């Protein structure tokens, strides 16, 4: 930097200092810095976690979630099964929309009807309403929802569907939500303005039915650059930031200007293995690069060897800076259907070598490890760490990370042999990863939609089907736990770790960390 500029900046700074009083925090207002842009104010347009995080302020759903992910009453005060295909929801009385109209059963039926018809939606919420066959309004405070066949997850699915008033008329447009005209909900905050990629302003709604939040005015800012988000917090321009980057964790833990809140999330990071080919798979060869006559990844011994050759504890400590825990399954301890019998695979390179030899590869293998480099926390570094650990059991590993936009298409076409992906369990329980990730890929049934390695296990498929027919929660949870044990013993994917969700607030504030990644102004309180 040259002299002239330092002087210019210094002079400007002196001028600016006089006007600083305006920048001091107002007791009644809160600024949140989110890590990714909210793409729409329309709550049914784009299933994207930043959108859902924001939507929770303005809109309500029938079933809400507490910070641990457990379903709690939202606009429905209670729900029960009438028979295997009929659910009855009792609606909360005396709830008002932001425009003053009353919330009734008609709004629920209107919302569920609108969800699949949102125009040009790139990721529709209809995945959460497709089980609904018809809706019956019994009286203004009671509705019955009939499902296509038994569907035990209806209440969980509806916890993703935000209710809008029926007076918006037929097919309200997404643009009218973004402009604020249609942005009417029953939530604790009223929408004021939206500047795409920059900020959303909200004001407390005094007619809210629930607990009154602490903040009169909330600004929801989008700051996607990690270093900038941290700097904005340190400078006091924002009160709370989400997704604290692991590189800053060590210094923030020691900084007395901020306070961290963390919780283990439902987002697991793992390696997919190619199960789709019995013949040679493109990126696994013999130790000298020679083509193999079959796919070694179809052999359980090879899969297990690759799994136990990884020192998960080291990755969690060194690469993730303790912003993760090692895992052997999709869900963290304490979550519904978590199975304590599935332990994180132990690190045992000696046994890994033996298993490889038994499988007929005493001289090891040569593999390419693919993955994204801009999607998950430290994704490319994790790949490098795994590559080095595999090297030690004689698996020569070439690490090849690429940007998500080109990586994800290849992953969807089974063009890679071993690749890193993550999965956030939105429902908070095990049928979600079982059905989407591990069930056999089946377009007609809509199963195995995210089964990128095309794993297929008929016994597991049968157990999943049975669980989905079981309406009794306790019995179903047991079935899901057993199915998960059966699956993970077969090493369909190599589980690495579960990420932690980490928020940092200014010293005077506390945030109750949420497993679902939502950052809600309602959860930010002045420190006691």
């Amino acid at each position, binding site marked *: 930097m040259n002299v002239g500029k330092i002087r210019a900046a210094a002079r400007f700074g002196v001028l600016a200092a006089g006007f*600083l009083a305006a920048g001091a925090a107002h007791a009644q207002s809160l600024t949140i810095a989110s890590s990714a842009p909210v793409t*729409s104010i329309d709550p049914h347009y784009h299933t*994207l976690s930043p959108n859902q995080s924001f939507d929770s302020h303005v809109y309500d759903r029938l079933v809400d979630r507490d910070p641990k992910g457990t379903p709690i009453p939202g606009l429905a005060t209670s729900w029960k099964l009438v028979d295997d295909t009929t659910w009855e929801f009792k609606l909360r009385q005396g709830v008002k929309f932001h425009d003053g109209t009353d919330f009734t059963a008609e709004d629920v039926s209107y919302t569920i009807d609108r969800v699949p018809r949102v125009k040009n939606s790139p990721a*529709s919420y209809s995945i959460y309403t497709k089980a609904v066959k018809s809706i019956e309004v019994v009286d203004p405070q009671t509705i019955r929802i009939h499902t296509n066949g038994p569907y035990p997850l209806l209440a969980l699915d509806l916890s993703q569907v935000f209710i809008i008033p029926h007076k918006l008329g037929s097919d309200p447009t997404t643009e009218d939500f973004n402009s604020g005209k249609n942005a009417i909900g029953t939530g604790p905050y009223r929408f004021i303005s939206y500047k795409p990629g920059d900020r959303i302003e909200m004001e407390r709604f005094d007619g809210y039915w629930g607990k009154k939040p602490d903040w009169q005015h909330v600004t929801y800012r989008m700051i996607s650059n990690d270093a900038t988000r941290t*700097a904005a917090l340190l*400078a006091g321009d924002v009160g709370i930031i989400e997704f604290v980057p692991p590189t800053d964790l060590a210094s923030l833990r020691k900084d007395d200007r901020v306070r961290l809140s963390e919780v283990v999330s439902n987002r697991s990071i793992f390696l997919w293995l190619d199960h789709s080919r019995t013949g040679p798979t493109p990126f696994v060869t013999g130790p000298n690069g020679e083509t193999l006559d079959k796919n070694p990844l179809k052999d359980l011994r090879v899969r297990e060897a690759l799994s136990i050759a990884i020192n998960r504890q080291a990755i969690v400590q060194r690469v993730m800076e303790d912003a993760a825990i090692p895992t052997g399954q999709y869900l963290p301890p304490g979550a519904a259907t978590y199975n304590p019998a599935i332990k994180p695979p132990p690190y045992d390179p000696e046994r890994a070598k033996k298993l490889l030899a038994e499988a007929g590869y005493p001289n090891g293998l040569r593999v390419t490890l693919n993955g994204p480099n801009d999607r998950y926390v430290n994704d490319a570094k994790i790949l490098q760490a795994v590559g080095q650990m595999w090297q030690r059991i004689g698996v020569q590993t070439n690490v090849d990370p690429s940007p998500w936009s080109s990586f994800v298409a290849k992953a969807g076409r089974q063009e890679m042999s071993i690749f890193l992906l993550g999965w956030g369990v939105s429902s908070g329980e095990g049928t979600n990863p079982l059905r989407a990730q591990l069930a056999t890929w089946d377009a007609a049934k809509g199963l195995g939609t995210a089964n990128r390695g095309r794993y297929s296990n008929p016994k597991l498929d049968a157990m999943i089907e049975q669980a989905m027919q079981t309406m009794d929660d306790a019995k179903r949870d047991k079935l899901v736990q057993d199915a998960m044990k059966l699956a993970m013993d077969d090493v369909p994917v190599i589980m690495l770790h579960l990420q932690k969700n980490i928020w940092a607030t200014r010293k005077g504030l506390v945030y109750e960390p949420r497993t679902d990644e939502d950052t809600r102004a309602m959860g930010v309180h002045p420190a006691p």
Partner: protein
Amino acid sequence: MLTWLLRRLFQALFVVLAMTVIVFIGVHVIGNPVDILISPEADQAERARIIADLGLDQPLWRQYLVFLGDALHGNLGRSFVFNEPALKLIAGRMPATLELAVTAVLLSIVIGVPLGLYAGLKPDGFLGRTIMAGSILGFSLPTFWVGLMLIMVFAVQLGWLPSTGRGQTAELFGLQWSFLTWDGLRHMAMPALNLSLFNISLVLRLTRAGVRETLPMDFVKFARAKGLSPARVIFVHVLKNIMIPVVTVVGLELGSTIAFAVVTESVFAWPGMGKLIIDSINVLDRPVIVAYLMLIVLLFITINLLVDILYTVLDPRVRLEGKR
């Protein structure tokens, strides 16, 4: 003059067309936007429905023809991500980038020309050498690092300036501008300085080189011999003669500062076009990428045109039609 203008316009049209073809093929090769946008929990039928909805199931040439047809009617398509017209999205972000880039370029002139002039007049003085050494830093320090350092010093340590964002805006010509409010100016100070750092060094060095080259020339000696005041010699005779390269470079740099302010914009969370385009490229939001690049091509063509016309004003020897 008219034929020259028409020829220029024809060339411009061709460049824009070529660019749209390249973007269509490029995005197609990288991947499918649906893979990125769609919820990972959506099933296969839902995926097929979205692909059809966005028209991505058609062969690429047909998608391109549909785009061309719409473009002729002034419709550059709707963003896949925001479901808003691409042009409206870009226009909403443009004032932020424009005011930042223009401020940065103005800063580079206001700071760069006097410093360069001084360094050219006193090339062996201590200050002259210091200025030149400093300009090397301006060239070589990475923008994002300088940006973060500015934030750490002026926002975090000293607390003089707001760390990020655009601050309060006021309306002018139906658009929102920050430079009209004090809060907006305070937010703009650091990003504008950060963005101008490279240009300051560039202008400074050009000015110095021009001064060094012009001073020994006969007309300067003659002007001095005639007894004109040193101020008049420098500010009228010397400065006017070195302005041609400076104007060219400042013009082109204005274009690239607008088009590629992305690093500064993301470091300072400045909601401009640069951030929009980077986000759009990450999710392969083709309508926005195409519309943005078309706009940038037009911008460069316009700036080049203006620079050529400015030439004739600054140097009477240059004739636009003389090029034939």
